[in-house]
């Protein structure tokens, strides 16, 4: 009796919170089909805003920038993070703990500080603000995601797989390529996907390190929210949402394959 009641209570609680989580998103999507320009009033169904969206060049440029930025930084983070996670799991280097601490700092420090840090440092180095600085900044906060996920995966992996490969005649490099990489792949890919999502979501750091001509999508949405939204933004958000669902499902599938 008691148990049964407990389950239904927790079920109701979970459902309720999930509904609250989705209400704002669903509203944004619904209003993307709103004929009226005023987002609080329903003026009938329309696909006009999607048409408007596809005609907006600057929106597409921002989208392209965000995708390129996300791909470049999540890929660089995947390479750097995976190598480091493998090296540091395999052999307990004295410097490992300290470096691990510093490497994960970018996600432990408030974003505004990272933004300011990058802004001042890049101008000290005289780097041209734009895609290059964006990629560096984003890579630095993507590395921790990949690194931590791959490290957790490798820590749970039986050491004897690599030993067996070595025993059967594989060099260290070969064993890494044949055994470690494929077995860590689910973590590498989900780390990359999460990095991509984080990079795609970032406003604060991007605002500080971008140049005059490089707008990313979140920055674009941000300035629109500040200055006044048209349902065109809703349409864009709805499209991003669909892609997000797809990426999430993909990541779940990959990480479940153990």
């Amino acid at each position: 009796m008691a148990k049964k009641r407990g389950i239904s209570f927790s079920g109701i609680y979970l459902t309720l919170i999930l509904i609250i989580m989705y209400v704002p998103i669903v509203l944004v999507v619904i209003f993307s089909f709103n004929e009226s320009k005023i987002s609080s009033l329903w003026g009938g169904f329309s696909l006009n805003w999607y048409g408007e969206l596809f005609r907006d060049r600057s929106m597409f440029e921002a989208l392209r920038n965000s995708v390129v930025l996300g791909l470049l930084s999540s890929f660089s983070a995947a390479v750097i993070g995976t190598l480091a996670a493998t090296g540091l799991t395999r052999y307990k280097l004295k410097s490992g703990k300290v470096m691990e601490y510093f490497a994960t700092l970018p996600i432990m420090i408030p974003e505004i500080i990272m933004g300011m840090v990058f802004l001042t440092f890049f101008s000290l180095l005289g780097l041209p603000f734009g895609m290059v600085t964006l990629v560096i900044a984003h890579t630095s906060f993507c590395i921790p995601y990949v690194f931590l996920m791959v490290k957790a995966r490798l820590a749970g992996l039986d050491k004897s797989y690599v030993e067996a490969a070595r025993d059967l005649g594989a060099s260290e490099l070969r064993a890494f390529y044949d055994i470690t990489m494929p077995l860590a792949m689910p973590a590498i890919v989900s780390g990359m996907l999460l990095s991509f999502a984080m990079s795609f979501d970032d406003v604060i750091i991007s605002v500080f390190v971008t140049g005059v001509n490089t707008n990313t999508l979140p920055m674009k949405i941000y300035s629109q929210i500040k200055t006044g939204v048209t349902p065109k933004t809703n349409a864009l958000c709805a499209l991003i949402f669909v892609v997000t669902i797809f990426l999430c499902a993909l990541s779940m599938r990959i990480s479940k394959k153990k």
Partner: protein
Amino acid sequence: MEALLQLEGIEKRFGDTEVLEGINLTVGKGEFITLLGSSGCGKTTTLRIIAGLEVPDGGRVYLSGKDVTNLAPDKRDVNMVFQNYALFPHMNVAENIAYSLRLKKVSKADIKTTVKDALDLVQLPGYESRMPNELSGGQRQRVAIARAVVNKPKILLLDEPLGALDLQLRRQMQKELKRLQTALGITFIYITHDQEEALDMSDRIALMRNGHFEQIASAEEIYNRPKTTYAAQFVGGANIIKGTVKYLKSENAVIEVSGGEIEAKTRGAQIKEGDRVTAAIRGENLEINPASETYSGLAATVTDKSFSGGMLRITARLADNTEITCHRQGIDCQYAAGDNVKLALKDAGAVLVDLEGGI
């Protein structure tokens, strides 16, 4: 026998714990040798040093006379069957077995026939495309062996390969491993903590304890003439009796113990009258009789009976509280706990132990 592998004064420490305290071992070609010991005795570490997965802190490893102490595992002609099999989970059976051949750049056609032969050898024909997680424990075991022998190593190392299998499968795999070893003619170095398994399979047993070898000898020798109390008890669970030498009688010594006297083999050790000694007696070498004048033997009181494996174990206690266990076939027994009995030694059933190490 030609020496294939030599360990010379191997030492290994993990932090403050000394795992191996300078062990020596010589293994001949085609031999089946078992490293026997309880967990933590250093047997796995010894195996890993032979495989090259650990580097010893002291001592040398020679393979066919060549010093391989610092040689990486991929450069050694030695292969290992891991305790948990370590089958690559992302490769199918054929890819697992072919792994070392692919590294050696053997042609595709040759790989295919070799894999097929290997699977026939371990009696898993047609299993090429299965994934490891689709196999039972026994089947994984066979694949792991196939993968390790396909390379024709000089030595095959087996780290408790049957540990995860149930009893029936174990017995069957023991026979098969023996058959394989004869068929392949490869030296096997086998690890187990199961003394019956060791006695059943090995040409020689190296009994390990706390990082050193307690005794290295044939199964028969170690069973009949254990060198130490530990060896006598660990292998076959012998009874241990302490006593004083009364007099010497050709190769035997007559020893005065609690409740009577027994005759034990001296194994040529230098002992004299009055020495305190320890003797080991196998349970099956003791006969249990009623406590009457008609019978001779050690006076004792029955404390317990238990029946397992077709064998009745009767435990009795001597006057000095030494516990002695006798074995006999069948479940019938006229004695109950509390009965006074006499324990008689069947011919030459006792042997002196711990002779070198002081008593």
